[in-house]
């Protein structure tokens, strides 16, 4: 699924380098660079609202990328990802309040969260499937309880404050500046993971997913790689969480519950398990879905349908319900995720008009 390429017949790879290249063609690489350059102009073109959505997509996609390492690439399951996201947020807020420059807080939060992730990943060495799912659920509840009780660390039930991001003594103010911070992290994180998957370790993770017995016979240390995948996942969750903390400058222990963990899973399932590009697409989809539902319900309120059904304030519930329905529809009709659909669209145009 992951490595599926639609290269034309007769296009052989003659070197290992060519086989593991990130961009199959020069055009695709140039398009990516062009895309990044174009998105750099976003703060000048978009309004605050659209920009804040882009920032959210960026932040959550980093955390979702971490989850995709564990679920999509290593074939484990984690339903406690939001807790790691929260841990990163609180760690970074805590460090920033203790005179660590925010610039260093974010990667540091990633490292600390990775260590916590390694601890909670230990059950993965022994457990599989549903049992592992329940074990990771423990991480969710233990950490969440820790957040609400560890007043020295999180402020307890009172939201913790986080310093704004600053670089070279200059404080980053507003979404149109913070956007670049998030963009830089998105690029770095996605490059890191893309490259990770080209290394021996990355291939080992995929081997564990595809057939753990064969992987073990080939000399892959299952315990090491399963636990490592949790550590890596937590690292990216921590970085995402830290970015989230300094974006909002307030971290409350709400929003890191199991529902958020499920949303992270939804992001990678909708985007495509084991697809790096898909993670970004899935995150964008999941972030934009409630917003578009909000527009829809706003348009609906006061309309004829509203009056006919007597919805009134229940319209806000309509939004929550539609999100669930759309996710179900998606899973039925697009089980391989947006990444797969994207490849099909590309293939369609590549072969047009001779698709068959």
């Amino acid at each position, binding site marked *: 699924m992951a490595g599926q390429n639609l290269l034309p017949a007769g296009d052989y790879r003659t070197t290992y380098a060519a086989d593991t290249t990130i961009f199959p063609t020069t055009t695709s690489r140039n398009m990516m660079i062009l895309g990044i350059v174009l998105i750099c102009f976003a703060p000048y073109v978009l309004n*605050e609202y659209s920009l804040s959505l882009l920032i959210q997509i960026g932040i959550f996609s980093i955390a979702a990328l971490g989850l995709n390492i564990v679920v999509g690439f290593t074939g484990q399951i984690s339903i406690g990802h939001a807790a790691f996201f929260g841990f990163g947020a609180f760690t970074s807020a805590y460090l920033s309040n203790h005179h660590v420059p925010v610039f260093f807080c974010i990667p540091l939060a990633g490292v600390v969260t990775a260590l916590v992730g390694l601890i909670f990943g230990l059950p993965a060495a022994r457990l599989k499937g549903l049992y592992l799912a329940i074990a990771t659920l423990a991480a969710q509840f233990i950490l969440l309880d820790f957040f609400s009780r560890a007043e020295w660390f999180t402020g307890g039930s*009172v939201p913790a404050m986080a310093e704004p991001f600053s670089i070279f003594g200059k404080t980053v103010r507003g*979404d149109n500046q913070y956007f670049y911070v998030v963009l830089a992290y998105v690029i770095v994180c996605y490059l890191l993971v893309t490259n990770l998957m080209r290394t021996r370790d990355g291939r080992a993770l995929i081997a564990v997913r595809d057939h753990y017995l064969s992987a073990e016979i080939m000399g892959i240390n299952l315990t090491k790689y399963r636990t490592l995948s949790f550590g890596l996942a937590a690292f990216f969750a921590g970085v995402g969480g830290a970015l989230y903390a300094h974006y909002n400058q307030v971290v409350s222990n*709400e929003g890191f519950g199991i529902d958020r963990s499920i949303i992270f899973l939804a992001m990678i399932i909708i985007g495509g398990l084991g697809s790096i590009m898909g993670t970004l697409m899935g995150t964008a989809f999941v972030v934009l879905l409630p917003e578009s539902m909000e527009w829809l319900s706003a348009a609906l309120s006061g309309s004829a349908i509203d009056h006919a059904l007597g919805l009134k*304030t229940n319209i806000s519930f309509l939004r929550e319900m539609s999100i669930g329905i759309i996710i179900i529809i998606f899973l039925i009709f697009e089980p391989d995720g947006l990444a797969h659909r994207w490849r099909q669209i590309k293939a369609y145009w590549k072969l047009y008009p001779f698709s068959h």
Partner: protein
Amino acid sequence: MTIRNLLATASVAVLLGVSTGAAQAQISIGHLADYSGGTADVGVPFGQAEADAFAWVNKNGGIGGKPVNVDTNDYGYQVPRAIALYKKWSAAGNKVSAILGWGTADTEALKKFVAEDKIPDISGSYSAALTDPTGASGKTEAAPYNFFYGPSYSDALRAELTWAAEDWKAKGKPGKPKYVHMGANHPFPNAPKAAGEALATELGFEVLPPIVFALTPGDYSAQCLTLKSSGANYAYLGNTAGSNISVLNACKAAGVDVQFFGNVWGMDENAAKAAGAAADGVIFPLRTAVAWGANVPGMKTIQEISRVSDPSGTIYRPVHYVAGVCTALYMKEALDWATKNGGATGENVKKAFYQKKDWVPAGLEGVCNPSTWTDKDHRGTLKVDLYRMKVSGDTGASVADLVKNGTIKLEKVKTVDLPRKPEWLGW
């Protein structure tokens, strides 16, 4: 279409955009409401009241002859969603003149930002941490742009404890009374905890370890058994009515003999109907001078406002609705003053709150309690009216009927006039 045509159309579109932008000198305010979250039981009537009040204001000429643009959003009691909305409201170019806020967690989280951005926030949170505009109390950070109408959670609890101490003496029971704080581990129920426990100790209560129960309705039998075995005499319920009902029911079933008292959100007519006999005897503070349907001049205005969302005029509005109208109309008059005195900027709206002593919004005489805000003290009022919820008989009928036939009755217990102690500011 030629290139020239295209350019012409585009420039016209741009011009139109600019001119409509300039014409929008309209006042905008943000409205944060909880219609679907943990406090929705009381968030719906309060939010509806604020929305209705401004719709009524707009129908009657708006502010400075222009309708107010109220951006109502249900944020589900989630701090992150409140912050996202706040970002929208504080963005340069679309900055709102004021915010009608809601929860304690989000209002306290936004405290620093509204001060930086100079946006007054009149909240549904009555946390005492929002009452110190200068930070001089040393108990909390400065909150120069936070307001609310009514006694703070801490002051309401202080009044209740004052009453409880007298009640204990009057009953002539031996020994020290035992007091316990109950509620979710959340900023809202926790807000008056320290203040309550400090005063309880001072008044000679024995303070028991707090008992935690979630903000959502559920099975709280375990909490009631703890309460029973602890031998508590007075228990403060820090949550909203919805989950308090669960506790009241469970404790009635467990045979707990405790005098409960709640905060302003802890009890209302709908809750009394839902809890039935279990709600009988609960003490709670009423923010307004009267409840729905009372024979005072201001009630006519409230009923007129209520018709915005209930054209039939038959719905019974709980205490939160009445308080919500008061809150909204304080903001309306502040916006009015600001518009006349240099424009509806956040700074002017804040100044407007300091203009009147014993302020009652026009048209609400006899309903809203007189409030006074100063630039050193945002405790609008220290007068706490304590009421007892009386429930006699079956509560199957509609709330309107139950109140009419006296099955549900709000019985006044005592008015506590707390001294304006500087050491009670900010917590």
